[in-house]
């Protein structure tokens, strides 16, 4: 172990706060690092991140299940890897290449995400690879590509945020999910800026807002169209901008003509007066930003919803200018990079498309294979999971860095499908709820034990540096993939060295939309990160996109006419309430990591449901009572938390726990037709009080 501090980043969310890891008494502790994203600040998760390195529950040896029904038992790496290779080969011999699938994670470094995509296509020759990022930013990605020809979380660095006069933040609770980012919003407000938050809940972020629009779940799109209607009516549109830099406004104008304020008020529950105030704040500001997050995106109309807000930003001329723009607050640590480099069923490295012959040829050349051998587009995440073990579905699955038993929608069904597989391999740090069902479990390295790059919400490529040697018996995912590839007869195509993988990734991404070819580890260290696209070593990187032109063929941004439609499931007599899901400050994703950290576990110990006191009184539910929530997918049991911060017709359950309190037992896998995003944020639910246990 080094004695000096190692400059690296937090392992959790997409902000990728800088931190120093300092050796102390044989362990690592977290110290503040003044990095441009977080300026030294960290939230509770970051400060406690090193606790998991020497955690007693950490996996340190591969585990194997000799046959279905047997217990997991420790084995050597040789035995585990041989078994995996053998099972994959047998499966593919019997059912074809498509019968083996791969499921990745948005926490993997660019190098590992890239290698996993390559492993699926080259060593397994399967089209079926997708990742949990599909559950995260896919709607915003699809909308960004349609409107601007390019998808990058934020088109500007965080430091631009304080310069925006007005910010419209939709479905994002950054004060809890990404706390250190609040310093930018605080500074924006300090300079006299206004923050408008759209959220069905009065979250800490909504409390910090100048104006909070507390809409009905699933009505964000209608709200966006309503705001644009008001802006058009009150002559606040930037006609010059529309004429010079965009296309397609007329079709949008026709659609928004039907979204007059009174109608939108009735649909959304947002008072007309507040809508007018919001539209006027945005329309009269000289600079404004429109930012969406999961609340707007995790809907069966998520892509259309994001497009509606992009329409608003475009019509007001608030895109492609300094201190303006549409952006998505991405979620997972490397959700952004993960989708750029081939972990998505329809994409190849460099944000290339798998159905584009030129793109295929480029990647095949870099990989040294025949383009004809490159599989085509595979199933999206939920579709992949939904068909596991069925005829035509995958029969063997490799899961890396994802806990789908907790995090996928309609979780009990996904769990059944996992159990219907012939063979399941899970690589993880702990025996997660998903790993518990695996035939082979592989222990992998943690962030402080490895090197690699991450791409944060700004499109800033960052360097994760190794601060300590891996725990004994633990391998990196890259080592695992390389060893498996060798057993499958494709060893010569793979290397496990992060820097070597990155060099290959640079070549693979060259000329693509997400061009990393000019980025090196050294440049990242020198410059506190490099923004893509960066097409050559001399290129400074691109902190700000679209200032001159958009990435579409004609350089113009595109309007898209979009209409409100009901959620996949609306409340009815049987399931009379809305259910929405989300996060709490002290936990992250499926909680596989944060539930194992003492301070975080103690901060919020168990799953709960937020209920408005008025609603609770009708059910005679008191604070702390056990309640049962039922949807068409299943039933969950959680503790009641009474709060006036939520609408009376809506319940909120955080999704960080497994077991009976699992929020995703309830959620609806209605998919967005374009992005294939499941509708985590809206479904219909029934509430019942459980009799008190004796």
């Amino acid at each position: 172990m080094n004695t000096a501090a190692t400059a690296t980043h937090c392992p959790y969310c997409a902000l990728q706060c800088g931190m120093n890891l300092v050796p102390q008494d044989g362990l690592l502790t977290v110290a503040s690092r003044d990095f441009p994203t977080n300026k030294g600040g960290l939230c509770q998760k970051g400060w406690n991140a090193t606790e998991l390195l020497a955690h007693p529950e950490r996996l340190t040896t591969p585990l194997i299940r000799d046959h279905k029904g047997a217990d997991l038992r420790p084995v050597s790496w040789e035995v585990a890897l041989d078994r995996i290779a053998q099972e994959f080969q047998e499966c593919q011999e019997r059912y074809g290449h498509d019968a083996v699938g791969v499921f990745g994670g948005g926490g993997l470094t660019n190098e590992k995400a890239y290698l996993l995509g390559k492993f699926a296509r080259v060593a397994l020759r399967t089209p079926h690879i997708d990742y949990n990022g599909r559950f995260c930013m896919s709607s915003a990605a699809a909308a960004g590509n349609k409107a601007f020809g390019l998808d990058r979380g934020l088109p500007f660095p965080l430091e631009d945020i304080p310069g925006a006069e007005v910010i419209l933040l939709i479905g994002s609770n950054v004060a809890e999910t990404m706390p250190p980012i609040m310093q930018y919003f605080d500074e924006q407000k300090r300079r006299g800026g206004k923050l408008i938050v759209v959220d069905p809940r009065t979250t800490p972020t909504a409390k910090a807002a100048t104006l909070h629009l507390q809409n009905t779940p699933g009505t964000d799109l209608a709200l966006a169209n309503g705001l644009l209607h008001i802006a058009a009516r009150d002559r606040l549109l930037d006609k010059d901008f529309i004429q010079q830099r965009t296309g397609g406004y007329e079709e949008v104008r026709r659609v928004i003509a039907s979204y007059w304020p009174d109608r939108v008020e009735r649909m959304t529950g947002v008072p007309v007066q507040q809508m007018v105030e919001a539209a006027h704040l945005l329309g009269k500001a000289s600079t404004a930003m429109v930012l969406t997050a999961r609340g707007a995106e995790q809907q069966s109309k998520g892509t259309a919803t994001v497009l509606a807000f992009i329409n608003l930003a475009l019509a007001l001329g608030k895109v492609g200018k300094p201190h303006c723009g549409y952006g998505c607050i991405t979620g997972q640590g490397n959700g952004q990079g993960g989708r750029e480099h081939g972990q998505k069923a329809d994409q190849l490295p460099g944000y290339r498309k798998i159905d584009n012959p030129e793109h295929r040829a480029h990647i095949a050349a870099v990989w040294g294979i025949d383009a004809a051998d490159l599989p085509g587009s595979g199933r999206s995440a939920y579709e992949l999971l939904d068909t596991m073990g069925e005829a035509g579905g995958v029969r063997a699955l490799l899961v890396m860095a994802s806990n789908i038993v907790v995090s996928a929608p309609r979780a009990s069904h996904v769990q059944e499908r996992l159990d219907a597989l012939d063979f399941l391999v899970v690589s993880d740090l702990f025996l997660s709820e998903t790993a518990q069902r695996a035939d082979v479990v592989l222990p992998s390295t943690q962030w402080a034990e490895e090197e690699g790059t991450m791409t944060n919400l700004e499109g800033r490529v960052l360097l994760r540096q190794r601060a300590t040697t891996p725990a004994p018996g633990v391998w990196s995912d890259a080592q695992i993939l390389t060893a498996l590839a060798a057993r499958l007869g494709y060893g010569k195509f793979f290397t496990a060295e992060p820097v070597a993988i990155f060099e290959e990734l640079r070549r693979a991404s060259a000329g693509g939309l997400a061009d990393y070819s000019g980025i090196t580890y050294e440049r990242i260290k020198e410059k506190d990160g490099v923004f893509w696209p960066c097409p050559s070593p001399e290129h400074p990187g691109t902190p700000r996109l679209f200032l001159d032109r958009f990435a579409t063929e004609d350089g113009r941004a595109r309007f898209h006419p979009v209409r409100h439609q009901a959620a996949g499931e609306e409340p009815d007599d049987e399931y009379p309430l809305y259910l929405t899901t989300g996060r709490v400050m002290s936990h992250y994703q499926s909680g596989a990591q944060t539930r194992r950290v003492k301070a975080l576990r103690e901060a919020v110990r168990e799953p709960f449901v937020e209920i408005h006191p008025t609603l609770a009184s009708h059910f005679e539910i008191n604070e702390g009572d056990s309640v049962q929530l039922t949807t068409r997918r299943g039933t969950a049991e959680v503790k009641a938390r009474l709060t006036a911060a939520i609408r009376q017709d809506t319940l909120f359950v955080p999704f960080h726990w497994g077991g009976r309190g699992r929020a995703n037992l309830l959620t609806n896998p209605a998919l967005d037709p374009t992005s294939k995003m499941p509708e985590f944020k809206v479904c219909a639910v029934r509430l019942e009080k459980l009799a008190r246990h004796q």
Partner: protein
Amino acid sequence: MTSKQTSKQRLVVIGNGMAGARAVEDILTRGGSEQFEITVFGEEPHGSYNRILLSSVLSGAQDMQDIYLNPIEWYQENNITLRAGVRVTAIDRATKQVSTANGDVVPYDKLLIATGSRPFVPPMEGLDMADGKRKPGVFVFRTLDDCTRIASYATKCKRAVVIGGGLLGLEAARGLLNYGAQVHVVHLATHLMEQQLDADAGAILKGTMEKMGVQLHLQKITTAILGEDMVTGLSFKDGSTLDCDMVVISCGIKPNNELAAECGLKVERAIVVDDQMRSVDDPDVYVVGECAQHRGRVYGLVTPLWDQAQVLANHLTGFDPEAAYTGSKLATKLKVMGVELASMGITGPANEGDEVVQIAEPQRGTYKKMVIRDNKLVGAILLGDLSKAAPLMQAFDKNTLLPEDRLSLLLDFDTSTKTKQMTMLEMPDEARVCNCNNVTKGEIRRCVLGGQHSLKGVMAATRAGTGCGSCKMLVQDIVEWASEGHLDADAAEDAGASNTALTTGAGRIPLGMAPIATQDMRGLTPTELRKIADLAERCNAPTVRITDGYNVDLLGAKKDGLLAIWDQLS
């Protein structure tokens, strides 16, 4: 048997208003263009537009081009044959074809009647000239053309009278005010908008409209329009008259049923339809909009028409063969600048046990009323204050169970949004101070009690203020309060560095005036205040702030002046 040119069915739509056009759009979005060759007949020479916003166009609040829904090109883009300005004269259900005024015959497989309605004009003398043409100065308010004609005529008028004090009549009246004419409304009933309001609300609304400059005449039955070549006035059944040079008739609607009646479809008040929006007599004939009578009701508001269009499209295209329309809940708002009015459901108790909650402030022009049945909202009127309209509308639409405290539905007690400033003593121990690191006031207090007396030390020990930093000032105030005069100086210096404010702890200002601000807010003597002011000036602090924690901040004081200040204080 001849082979068909195309496998598509022929869908003929009669009417291109809000219901017909919407139905066609809904059919298209459900893949209808694959199944149907669509022909649309519209009497108006335009594409479709949003009639609901006509009064906004009349009042000048909205530009005319903003209300077009589908211009002529839209129909071409979607391969729809639009016969704008062509009137259908007959339907032959036996041969399944329609005939037009210019002699064309168009066959159909499915027919959609969306002929809508026309203004109801009550019988009265002098409406028309001898040649049968309408008398100059007499208008109805229904179409975009009406709107344009009214607007151009109104500029030349001294006094305009609107016959009909319903929703649209009042909107027209308010619109006419903007053209400089004196505006009167004559109304048949005992109060305005009797469909949507009870008598109390009607009376308050009358007052509001009158203050705005609209003169109102209730219980007036117009018997004649006076004037030879143009309007000169009105005469009423009670024998009175009213001079004017313009009349706008807004007395409700009359469904356009004639075509349907002539071809033998069942017509009562309007064309009678089933839950799939088909004529009860012919499964190949759908009906939508103001010309449809569903379960005994004829709707005139746009939302129900769109609900109907959706069901129709789902059923016609097979997108949802089970689709059924079961009726709509009616709610509306008056679009009159300066009047806040919303109404939903019934206007008064109708069943035994219906509960009424009512607040009236006639002086302020405010009136609020709810009708509650089985703990659910079945009717409401809000006048003069719409701050509660959105939640009430949703409770009405969704049958939400209402809280026991009914008044909370009508009044804002302002408890949630603005938290009042509380003192350190009042702030509960479990109040979360630092969101990022989940630190409560109690943890900070205990940390100080445990011996940490510097801000830096407390921050390091509790992590409070080490995330986004927005709570740093509050953390500092708590540390100062909790340390009761034993705050280490480096705390102040540290905060000064990052917040460009220099703070002195409450208990650390001696000079015989300590504490300058106490926890019980004892206050200061003038001498004490003067001393602080002198001090602030000496160290060039432009702003002096009393904090929530009763400390005094000298904002903008130079950090290097810190020691000098301490010296002066001691």
